[in-house]
């Protein structure tokens, strides 16, 4: 009970204080001579956002970049140049991690977008009531946390030792195919099978998102273009491939990039399901492991900087899209 009261109290204080900051800033600026206050006005609205972004985002990112060139042990720290990076790239484990990241990027966005487009197109033909039910069920995982999704799927992949009753669906299917005494499937790293099993979770989570965006785009396709193609004798596949797909391609690419960025940062699922063991680790998890388990700030910073460098081209892409949208306005 005390916790609840404290929680409510904390919430109220937090909100009142933040409103107070804006009121105070405005009051202070209104005290200035009129000529200055006209120009300073903007700071009354912008200062809190700027301060927060500079202290909690911009400076820390720069700090991380600096630390990636240092070796930090306890209180001692010294410049080591590119040594952290050199160590990473000569470590076969780390190269395996890069391979995993690459596989994630290659597989997840493409599959997610494909299934999303499929569902969006199919649900367009089944009438509004069924469409709503189908879409809600596919979309539902969007509201679930990665950790809860991991529990849901870990149960599906659960392993029972020989002699114990089998409770995991995946193991049951494998034994159904006649395999006796299977190993835990999340430990099979031949062909990175276990990584693909983890990818399934993310596809499961993200298809809803891609469906919603692509479905909105499909509904915006002018009816006349579809009608005209039908009258000219085009079948459903031709209508989809030649008429609808080209018109929604922009939205599909937007979803693709968004999922791609999400996948590059994937972390919680690896932590919850394998803790990066059995060759399933990825960059974001490696960062976590190197800092929170090995307390190696320098090399953890280097790992995350590699992630930043890989994402930078996407930043450029994102900025271009923003500029493009601005022009259309």
């Amino acid at each position, binding site marked *: 009970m005390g916790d609840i009261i404290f929680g409510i109290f904390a919430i109220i204080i937090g909100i009142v204080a933040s409103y107070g900051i804006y009121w105070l800033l405005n009051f202070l600026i209104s005290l200035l001579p009129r000529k200055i206050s006209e120009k300073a006005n903007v700071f009354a609205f912008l200062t809190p956002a700027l301060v927060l972004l500079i202290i909690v985002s911009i400076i820390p990112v720069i700090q991380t970049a600096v630390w990636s060139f240092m070796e930090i042990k306890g209180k001692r720290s010294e410049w080591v140049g590119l040594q952290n990076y050199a160590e990473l790239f000569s470590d076969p484990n780390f190269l395996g991690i890069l391979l995993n990241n690459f596989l994630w990027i290659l597989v997840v966005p493409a599959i997610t977008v494909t299934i999303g487009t499929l569902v969006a197109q199919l649900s367009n033909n089944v009438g509004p009531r069924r469409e709503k039910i189908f879409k809600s069920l596919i979309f539902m995982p969007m509201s679930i946390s990665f950790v809860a999704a991991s529990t849901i799927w870990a149960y599906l992949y659960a392993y029972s030792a020989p002699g114990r009753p089998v409770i995991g669906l995946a193991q049951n299917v494998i034994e159904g195919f006649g395999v006796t005494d299977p190993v835990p499937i999340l430990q099979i790293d031949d062909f990175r099978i276990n990584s693909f099993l983890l990818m399934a979770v993310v596809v499961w989570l993200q298809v809803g998102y891609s469906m919603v965006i692509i479905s909105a785009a499909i509904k915006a396709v002018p009816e006349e273009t579809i009608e005209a193609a039908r009258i000219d004798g085009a079948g459903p596949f031709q209508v989809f491939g030649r008429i609808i797909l080209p018109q929604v391609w922009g939205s599909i690419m937007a979803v693709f990039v968004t999922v791609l960025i999400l996948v590059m940062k994937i972390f919680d699922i690896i932590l919850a399901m394998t803790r990066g063991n059995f060759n399933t680790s990825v960059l974001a998890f490696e960062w976590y492991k190197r800092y929170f388990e090995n307390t190696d700030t320098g090399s953890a910073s280097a790992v995350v900087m590699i992630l930043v460098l890989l*994402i930078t081209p996407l930043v450029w892409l994102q900025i271009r899209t923003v500029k493009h949208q601005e022009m259309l306005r």
Partner: protein
Amino acid sequence: MNKLRNFSGKVNLGSTLALTILVGIWSIPTIGLLITSLRLRSEAEISPWWDGFFNPLGTVWSLEAYQNSLSSGMLDSLVNTIAVTVPATILPLMIAANAAYAFTFLNFKGKELFFAILVGLMVIPLQSALIPVLKGMVWFQRTFDIPLTGTYASAWVVHSAFALPLAIYILRNYMLSLPTSLIEAARVDGASYYQIFWKLVLPMSIPAIASFAIFQFLWVWNDYLIAFIFVGEQKSVMTYRLLRMLGQYGEGWQDVAAGSFISLIVPLIVFFALQRYFVRGLTAGAVK
């Protein structure tokens, strides 16, 4: 005409069938865990969940796992999660609305540059900032003897900062669509920028604020990493506790399952009640 209708009727049936199969596959994992959460430990251990699905009458159903889960800390975690989530949703929206207002209606030097940095920050992984922020907080509390890590407030600040770029971007886009003539008229009538913001722009931006609020709420509620680093053990949120439970499922799957569903209830309610706004927010972000 008749031929056309027949033709689309066939497509209709095929689509329904295909979607039914797909939705079935999509629901299996959740149904499995839901059934498990409603069984007794003694049963969940020796028989798979689909026994309960195909033979519902021969199965003992119970809420024992939910009771166990709640009494072994999930209830405290629910309170903690709410205490982290509510301010971490309201604060960034307030700050972002103010900043978006400045970006939309006020002129100042370096506006373009600020905005480019903002868009860039939208994509930078938050991991690249977390360690320095954590170390900074530890230094601050050692120097000034004010506890920061392990409190709700530190999570509010960090969540707010990382939500800002996207929130400012979305709100600015929305504010650009507001009629400028109205704001100019208010200016002429002698209203200050402060009054225009609180009395005119903020109320008119409610639709955009609402749809971003849903996002931010779900994002913070479902977050693990920031809660782990900045709130941690003392005031553990539900994702934190769930992960610990998953690591030691000697307690039995039914308790983990019940814990998952307790953590899912609020997001699911928010999702189904506000689905329309949620979808609107999503499409506003990605479809021009």
